[in-house]
């Protein structure tokens, strides 16, 4: 009886091992073909370049203190909202931005990393992470853009200022 059980056990383990032999780890690796990558429409790529070019001009306008460059980037009805580092709210027209730059001059040391968070054929949402808008001050800018008559314009800027270490 004991002998029979042992034979059964050994048979069972052989079956398991055989099954394992049939299932090597990387079976699928050789069988799966790389799917063809979908092509991004040319217009979308062109739009993204144009969007980021507007943001670059915006940053350049801040860095050089040129209000005329800023005015080129923003729609005339654009709004700007956010808090100063003293927690004072700025709300309303983008005119505030022009006034600040005119009054205080260039943000000479500002740099920025810009990312298009989402885009459609007529709108885009951009994150601009600005460093050194003032000594020890950074800004997170959320910029909404619209394509109007073939040109991308910033229609809204909502920002958060933070202390830089």
């Amino acid at each position, binding site marked *: 009886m004991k002998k029979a059980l042992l034979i059964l056990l050994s048979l069972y383990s052989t079956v398991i091992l055989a099954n394992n032999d049939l299932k090597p780890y990387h079976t699928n690796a050789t069988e799966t073909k790389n799917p063809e990558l979908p092509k991004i429409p040319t217009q979308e790529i062109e739009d993204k370049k144009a969007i980021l070019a507007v943001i670059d001009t915006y940053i350049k306008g801040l860095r050089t203190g040129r209000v005329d460059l800023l005015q080129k980037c923003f*729609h005339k*009805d654009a*709004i700007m*909202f*956010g*808090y100063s580092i003293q927690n004072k*709210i700025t*709300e*309303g027209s983008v005119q505030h931005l022009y006034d600040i730059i005119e009054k205080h001059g260039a943000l000479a040391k500002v740099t920025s990393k810009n990312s298009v*968070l*989402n885009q*459609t*054929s*007529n*709108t*885009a*949402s951009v*994150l601009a992470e600005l460093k050194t808008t003032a000594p020890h001050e950074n800004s*997170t800018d*959320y910029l*909404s*853009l*619209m394509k*109007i008559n073939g040109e991308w314009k910033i*229609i*809204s800027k*909502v*920002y*958060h200022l*933070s202390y830089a270490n």
Partner: protein
Amino acid sequence: MQNTENVNSIADYDAILNVAQVYVDGLKIGDVEQLKQTFHPDGLMAGTMPDGKLTTKLQFLFDFTAENGPAPEVKSHISILHKAETAAVVLVELENLQGGVGSTDYLSMLLVDGEWKIISKAFNLYWVNMDKVC
């Protein structure tokens, strides 16, 4: 590196998602007052209508909703694209608005007196048959 407080609290994420949901529900039931609650009074809505007309006025949203009523079949997906301590940007994808129109909305929000408010909405519409739209 020293651990500091996480400025992005879950309560804030939840509050932001809730504002976006109240906005979507406002469109769904066609409630102008409910929509008004979610926006800053000096906020803005920008986009192009199917007839090619450009709007940059928030009042247009309220007028449109008052005129066209609810969108009972609307479906939505809400994502927070990015968030800082007092500001955030939210993506709202909408399908089946009035006349089967779809929309991609970017909602920029600001934390005003402890409450998240939509400062700007930029939209892009999708439609198949122009005749059915408003």
